[in-house]
C-alpha cells in the first residue's frame, strides 16, 4: 500500500510539472502580448515598450522565464498581477476559500442526492425506479447556466429565500448565499452519479456471491452492506472523483452567474484582462485539483479491492 501511495505521489508531481510547462508555454504563445493590455489604447514609444517588457521579464527567453517562475512558485511566490499589482497568491487565496466552500457544498449535495437516489432506484424496482430515472434524465440535460437562471428567478427573486448575487459576510452568510450556486453546480453531477450508483448496485445485486449470501440466510441489511454496497463502490468512487474535479471547472460558469467572488470569477476576469500570472496560477490549481482527485480515487479503489493492492505491489 505504501508503495502504491509513493507511486501515485511521484506520478502526481510529474503530471503537475509537465502541465505547468504546457500552461506557461501556451499562454505566452497565445496571440497578443501582455504589455499591450497595460498600454491599452496608447501607442508607447519603442523605448517605453522595451522598458516595460524588461520590467515584466518579457525580454528574456521562454525557458529562463519559466525557470524563474517555477522557482518562485516553489517558494510560494506566484508573481504579481499585471493589472492590480497585488501578489498573485493573495488574489487567488482570497477567492479560493469561497470556491472550495462552494465545491464542498456541491460535493455533499451530490453525494447525498446522487447516492441516495441511485440506491433507492436500485433497491426499489418499478415506479420508484422509473420516477428516479425520469428525474435524473432531466437533470443531466440542464446545463449550469440554465439551472442558475431558473434558481435565481424562483428562489432568489420570487421567493426571496436566498440572495441572487454575491456573498453575505461571515461563514454562515457564505453558506447561506452559496446554497443556490451549489445546487446549480451539483445538478448534472447528481443525476449522473445517481445513474452510475443505480447501475453499479443493480450489477452487484445479481452477482453470484450475493446469491451465496442469500442462500446462507443472511438478513437483507447485512447482506446489502457487506456484499452489495461495498462491491458496487469502485465505479461510484471513480465517478465521484471525476465529478468533483469537474466541479472546479464548473465554478467558472456558476460563479459568474451568481457573482460569487471565487476562483471561477477571478479566472474569467483575468483571462479577459490577459493577467497572465493569475491565469497561470489558477490553471495550475485546476490541474492540481484534477490530479489530486484522480490519485485519491485510485488509492480509495485500492483500499476497496484487494486485487488492486496486489497489482500495485507488482509494478
Amino acid at each position: 500500500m505504501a508503495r502504491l501511495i509513493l507511486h501515485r505521489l511521484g506520478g502526481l508531481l510529474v503530471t503537475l510539472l509537465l502541465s505547468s510547462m504546457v500552461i506557461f508555454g501556451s499562454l505566452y504563445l497565445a496571440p497578443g502580448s501582455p504589455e499591450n493590455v497595460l498600454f491599452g489604447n496608447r501607442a508607447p514609444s519603442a523605448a517605453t515598450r522595451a522598458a516595460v517588457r524588461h520590467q515584466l521579464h518579457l525580454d528574456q527567453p521562454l525557458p529562463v522565464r519559466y525557470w524563474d517562475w517555477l522557482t518562485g512558485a516553489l517558494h510560494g511566490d506566484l508573481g504579481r498581477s499585471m493589472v492590480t499589482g497585488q501578489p498573485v497568491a493573495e488574489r487567488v487565496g482570497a477567492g479560493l476559500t469561497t470556491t472550495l466552500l462552494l465545491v464542498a457544498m456541491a460535493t455533499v449535495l451530490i453525494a447525498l442526492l446522487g447516492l441516495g437516489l441511485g440506491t433507492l432506484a436500485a433497491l426499489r424496482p418499478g415506479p420508484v425506479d422509473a420516477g428516479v430515472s425520469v428525474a435524473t434524465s432531466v437533470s443531466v440535460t440542464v446545463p449550469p447556466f440554465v439551472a442558475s437562471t431558473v434558481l435565481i428567478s424562483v428562489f432568489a427573486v420570487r421567493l426571496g429565500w436566498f440572495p441572487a448575487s454575491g456573498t453575505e459576510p461571515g461563514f454562515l452568510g457564505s453558506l447561506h448565499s452559496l446554497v443556490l450556486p451549489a445546487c446549480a453546480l451539483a445538478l448534472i453531477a447528481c443525476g449522473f452519479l445517481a445513474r452510475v450508483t443505480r447501475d453499479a448496485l443493480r450489477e452487484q445485486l445479481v452477482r453470484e456471491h450475493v446469491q451465496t449470501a442469500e442462500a446462507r440466510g443472511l438478513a437483507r441489511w447485512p447482506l446489502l452492506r457487506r456484499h452489495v454496497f461495498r462491491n458496487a463502490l469502485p465505479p461510484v468512487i471513480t465517478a465521484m472523483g471525476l465529478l468533483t474535479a469537474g466541479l472546479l471547472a464548473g465554478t467558472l460558469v456558476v460563479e459568474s452567474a451568481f457573482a460569487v467572488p471565487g476562483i471561477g470569477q477571478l479566472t474569467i476576469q483575468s483571462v479577459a484582462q490577459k493577467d497572465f500570472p493569475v491565469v497561470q496560477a489558477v490553471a495550475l490549481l485546476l490541474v492540481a485539483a484534477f490530479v489530486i482527485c484522480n490519485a485519491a480515487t485510485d488509492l480509495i479503489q485500492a483500499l476497496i479491492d484487494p486485487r488492486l493492492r496486489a497489482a500495485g505491489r507488482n509494478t
Partner: protein
Amino acid sequence: MTDATPLLELRGLGVQLPGDGGPRAVLHGIDLTLGAGEALGLVGESGSGKSMTMRAITGLLPPGAQLDGTVRFEGEDIAAMAPSTLRRYRDRGVGMVFQDPRAHINPTRRIGSFLTEALTLNRGLGRRAAQARAIATLSEVGIDEPERRLRQYPHELSGGMLQRVMIASVLLAEPRLLLADEPTTALDVTIQAEVVGILDQLRRDRGLGMVFVTHDLDLALAVCHRVAVMYAGRIVEVRSAERMHEENAHPYTRGLLGSRPAIDHRAERLTAIPGRPVSAFEAGPGCAFATRCAHVQPLCRERPPELAPFRGGLVRCHRVAEIHQETSDGTSSQEATA
C-alpha cells in the same frame, strides 16, 4: 417430525420463468423424495432444469418466476414460510455448494469473513469462537495453514482450495441437507476427484442428506445412492445407483451412458445423442425427448408419457418395455455373432 417424514420432498414441482411470449416452463412435475442421510444424484445436460431445481429447493428463484407444486423440508412447505423462518431454513436446514467458487465468494472480503459471517450474523456467535470453528473446519477439508488462510483474499487461493473453503463454509453451518450444484465442473480434472472425495467423506461422517447435481452420470453413480436423470425440465428416469448400469431403460439415459468413452479400448468415434437438448418450454405435446429418440413412434409425439415403475426404477417412456425387449434381444444376437 416422525420417522416417516422425509428430509426433503418435492411434489409436482414446476417453475415458469417470464419470457417474451408469456411464462415459459423450465421445470415440470418434479416428484422427488430424499431421506435423511441419503445422497441423490440429479443428472442431465445444460438447461435440463437441474440448477433450477436446486434454486427451488432453497427458495431462491429468479425474480418473476412462478412456482407450482410444493417443496417440503422436514414436512414444512418452504413457500409458506415466513421470511424469518425461510432465513433460518437457509441458515441451518440447507447448505449449498456452488459450481464456481471464484464467482460465488465475495472477492473483496477475506476468507475468514466469508467463513464466519453466517455464524456471527445469524447466530450471534463471537468472532473468536467463530474463527476457531472456521480453522477446525478448514483442517477437516484438508487445507493447510488454516490460520493464515483466514487472513487471505479469495484471489490468493487456487480454485480447488476455494471450493474446499466453500465446502467448509457449508459444513460450518451444520445443515441437514447438502446441495451440491456441479461442485467440480469449474475445477481442474486432477482436483475434481479430491474435492468429490472430501465432499463424499464428510457427508457420510455427518450423515447429511445430499442432492448432487452434475452432468456426469458416472460421477453421480459413484457418490450417490439414487440417481434421477433429467431432460427438458422433467425427470425421465430414477433408479438406484447400483442398478443403473444394468437396468437403465430410458433411451436418453442409454444415450448418456453410451456417449462416454470406454476405458478399456480405444474408441474410433464417440456415440453422440443426435440433435440438441430442448428446453421444457420448447417440448411439444408429446414426449420431450421424441425429437432425438431413435425409437420414436407417432404416440410419442402426441401424448406425454408418465413416470412409471419399470424394473425397480421409475421411467418416463411409452415404449420402455418394447425397447427393453428389442435391445436385450439385440445384445444377445450381437454376442452370438461375436
